[in-house]
């Protein structure tokens, strides 16, 4: 199973195995990793699963769709490597993916 590394805003690291096909958001929620709220349960409708993808991995995560881009454009802390983690499905190629959490989810 691919291993995903979640880094909280305070620097705390969590490396967990996430099944292929699950989203990066679900990997955090199922392992009780703080910093990803996912209020809408993965529907791309809340933007509380916002993460910064490590630049080295950005291209492998694909590009955000239209709905994701508009949700992200409202996030106070959004940056060019921002993604909604519910919109990134875990694949073999993402083994070792590093994502960082923002200061707060909105």
């Amino acid at each position, binding site marked *: 199973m691919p291993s995903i590394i979640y880094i909280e805003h305070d620097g705390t690291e969590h490396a967990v195995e996430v099944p292929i096909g699950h989203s990066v958001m679900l990997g955090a929620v199922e392992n009780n990793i703080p910093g990803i*709220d996912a*209020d*809408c*349960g993965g*529907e*791309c*409708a*809340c*933007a*509380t699963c916002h993460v910064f993808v490590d630049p080295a991995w950005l291209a492998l995560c694909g590009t955000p769709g239209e*709905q994701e881009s*508009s*949700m992200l*454009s*409202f996030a*106070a*802390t959004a940056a060019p490597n921002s993604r909604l983690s519910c919109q990134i499905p875990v694949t073999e190629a993402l083994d070792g993916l590093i994502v960082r959490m*923002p*200061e*707060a989810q*909105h």
Partner: protein
Amino acid sequence: MSALASTHHAELAATTPLEELDVSDPALYRDDVWQPYFARLRREAPVHHCRNGMFGPYWSISTYKEIVQAELLHKVLSSESALGGISIRDRPADLRLPMFIAMDPPRHDEQRRAVQPIVAPANLAKLEHLIRERACRILDELPRNETFNWVDKVSVELTVQMLATLFDFPQEERRKLSYWSDCATALPMPGGIIETEEQREAVFAEMLASFMGLWNARVNAEPGNDLISMLAHAPATRHMSPREFMGNLVLLIVGGNDTTRNSITGGVLFLNQNPEEYAKLRANPALVESMVPEIIRYQTPIAHMRRTAIADVEFAGHTIREGDKVVMWYISGNRDEAAIEQPDRFIIDRKRPRQHLSFGFGIHRCVGNRLAELQLTILWQEILKRFDRIEVVGPEKRVHSTFIHGITELPVRIPA
């Protein structure tokens, strides 16, 4: 509600022919008897068409999952004020106000971004101290062993002080803000706070005049950290027409005021209705964190949001036609057993308490959701430090509205 009224409405909800079921009557919310009607809609017709509603024909969406799906369809389900906007009741066409909650992209997105910094994490952190100081002052001045209206002395007072801060509006005139907010949402009727739409327009004009002064001062000053300054300096909003400024003021005043106010009141009521939950909270004040979103779910301060179809759309097996009015009933979706366990119970330690519809979803999702939670969290932390109990000593009075789900009077007593 009385047992008699509740049996009567359960019966009525069960026996009315499905196609005649109309949940738009504001009396259902004033009398707190809406529950059985929505239980039936969720069971038998999650997407339901009502031909003869009190405010005209409309579709009801009453289940959680379908509401989230509808929120995502903003390209065909429009919020545009000229089409009728976001509430089931159409205002007269010439009195409809443009405001970004009632706009579609791209204008919505641009204007929303102008005010978004007000709730950035750094700004919220700054506000936290101020909110605590005020909450403490308000609570310390409350009478003991004496009946008073919690809504007026606490809920209105705290939210209106906050609102004055967000606008950098003179604190000594802050009660004007709650007056304008009440006027904005009132259903015009004889003897009401607003009797006619013309009277409402006059109040709005007075509000605009008062804010124009602030605007003129800020537009010529360095950009500041308050909402007026943000609107006056952002490229998307600095050339707004006076009417658009008026509309956005109404949005920010109502959005930041009524909703949080009614959650503050709801919390006291729910804990009194559920003494075992109140006991849990006293034993473990850390539960405030999960209680706050549960209060907001259980209250559902905005009962619905409305959209207007701008094209034919297939939705959950139905064809919604261009021009149709579509109402997403948050108040019902928040009681949907398919999405929330034991949804009719108020449980302060739910596992995922933020999964609720009260803030909406999608591109219009509430800008102020974290700020509202912050105010409630601080208030409850400070209440628990001071009072063993706040006792509700009489029946509450509810707002006569299909849109604002609120409480205007809650008589309470704090034992000495």
